[in-house]
């Protein structure tokens, strides 16, 4: 594997995830190898049931692989305890969900502060950090609003701010525009572009071609396997990525 002056964030080797339903074994992930470097912007596509969400859950340390190894930031996560995984989720991973998952009783600011409550280092300056990151996603004027006082796009911005508040190594977004109209989707995707330009590593799952085209690399999945992995040629950083990616073959 060729690796040029680029730090690997994610390294999956032969990862499987098998669900047992009765006597049946469902191979939601069936031998996935994947490498993603720092500041890449990756879109994962594939038909429903192809294992995209399962992959995201494994990447986000919400779920454990049945077999195979997963290194995040050079650290093997397969042997970590539940508490250590919680810590990894807190410090290195930012999750954005399709249905936002904001707590309805808390203001935007409190929602964004929430991950810092569970953080060792972020607790003391949590208010300031939450305000800063809300500013970054363009919601400086909405910090006191409750989720039900916000539009769909604004809600997703709050959720993105919450994902970013601990300065994660990767931002994982599972169909982040799935609940939004096309205009708002475009705004959110512009925000992702901006974050990417600022150096954020992003992985998002989508059905839609035009969403995937915002990324610089598109991975297609089918039946728990990666079936294609191509560069879109969209960003300025494609030279470095192209070599990095050559290890993944189309099936």
């Amino acid at each position, binding site marked *: 594997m060729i690796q040029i002056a680029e730090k690997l964030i994610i390294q999956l080797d032969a990862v499987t995830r098998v669900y047992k339903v009765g006597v049946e074994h469902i191979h939601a992930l069936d031998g996935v190898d994947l490498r993603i470097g720092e500041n890449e912007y990756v879109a994962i596509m594939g038909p429903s049931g192809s294992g995209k969400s399962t992959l995201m*859950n494994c990447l*986000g340390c*919400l*779920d454990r692989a049945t077999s195979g190894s997963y290194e995040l930031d050079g650290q093997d996560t397969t042997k970590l305890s*539940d*508490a250590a995984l*919680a*810590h990894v*989720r*807190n*410090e290195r991973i930012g*999750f954005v*969900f399709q249905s936002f*998952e904001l*707590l309805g*009783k808390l203001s935007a600011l409190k929602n964004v502060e*929430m*991950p810092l*409550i*569970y*953080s*060792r280092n972020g*607790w003391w300056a949590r208010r300031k950090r939450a305000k800063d990151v809300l500013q970054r996603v363009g919601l400086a004027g909405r910090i006191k609003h409750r989720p039900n006082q916000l539009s769909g796009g604004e809600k997703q911005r709050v959720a993105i701010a*919450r994902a970013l508040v*601990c300065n994660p190594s990767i931002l994982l977004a599972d169909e982040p525009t799935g609940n939004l109209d096309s205009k708002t989707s475009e705004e959110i995707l512009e925000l992702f572009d901006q974050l990417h330009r600022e150096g954020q590593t992003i992985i998002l799952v989508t059905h839609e071609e035009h969403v995937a085209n915002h990324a610089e690399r598109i991975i297609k999945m089918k039946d728990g396997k990666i079936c294609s992995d191509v560069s879109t040629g969209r960003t300025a950083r494609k030279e470095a990525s192209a070599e990095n990616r050559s290890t993944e073959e189309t099936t």
Partner: protein
Amino acid sequence: MRALINAPLAFLRLFYQSVYLALSQIWANKMRSFLTTIGIVIGVASVTAVIAALTGLKAQVLTQFETIGTNTIFVGPRRPKTGPMRHASWWTIRFLPEHFDGILENCPSVGLFSRLGSVGSHTARFGENSVENVNITGIEAAYHEIQNRPVILGREFSVIDNMQKNQVCLIDPKLQTELRLDRDCIGQAIRIGHQTFVIAGVIERRPELNFGQDAEDYYEVFIPFRTLYKLGEPGIWAFAASKSTEMTEEAQAEMKFFLRRTRGIRPNEPDTFRIDSVKSFLTSFNEVALMVTLVAGGVVGISLLVGGVGIMNIMLVSVSERTREIGLRKAVGAKNSAILTQFLIEAVVLCFFGGLVGLGLGQCLTLIISGINPVLEKTYIPVWAVGLAFGFAGSVGIFFGLFPAVKAARLDPIEALRHE
């Protein structure tokens, strides 16, 4: 070093955050929280009120006996529960003065002894003024010391007064005013029945010695025991004091032996009199108090149990309502222990809240109790009962909150986020 500081800090942060979350959760579900904690409220209110009432009663009883003296012994006639004397008339089993002759010589543990006699109430007169229903009690000289009841003016009775059947009396200060006697009334004479008595002294008023009697129109006059016979045939009883509180039981045994002999009771027959000590009364009072405490404790325990089940129920509802929230919190990095702490603290805060309301209610009950009965006016909630109430409430919270909290902590984050 960092880790050493970080661990407790992390817990403090979590604690602070959990209390904050719990309070906002309770505030958000005000009505539900209130209804849930009713069991705890009632439990805590009743335990504090019962403890307060008992404390008050105890304080009252103790001050009463302190003034009498804990080595005091009371002797009076009593029908036995068995034997031929079971249906005997009071007249047959009455005490005669000579039953007590030589008691001090024969009972070495008895330090002081006084016969007492009563001829009921009479009218006392001084010139034109009269007071009806004055209690006439005949006493011997030792009475003052046994009952710890000195005179405030004049002199106490002496042995001579009794021996010579002197027509002297001790009056209570209220009677002195009612009869419009002089300020220094020593030597003035009052009439009781057809007899005249010269006032030898004014004795302290001690309404608390007459448990429950209306202190307002209660007047007392004391005359020497032997003089009493001039007013009629008295009912007789006696007061004694053992040489020390520790010797009370011995003194009682000696007196029992002595009185059985003087009253001619055969060996296999039961006593026709009673010998009670303040000490034994206190012991049985404490037993009753303990019983009441235990029964109340049982009732309170049941209501706390019911309250606890209510808490558990509402916490389970809360956990299932907030499954997605739990999933999210885990996804952003909450450890199982953090979720556990959050829900446990929520249950405990709920119980403390119930405890606080219960304490308020208990205080109201206590005020009502102390208001309706003067015997219980010393009623108050002692500090330890407040601690006990909160301790109980907190334990109920931890005990019944644990199961829902563990359930919440064990939720799988992915499943939880998919929950609808």
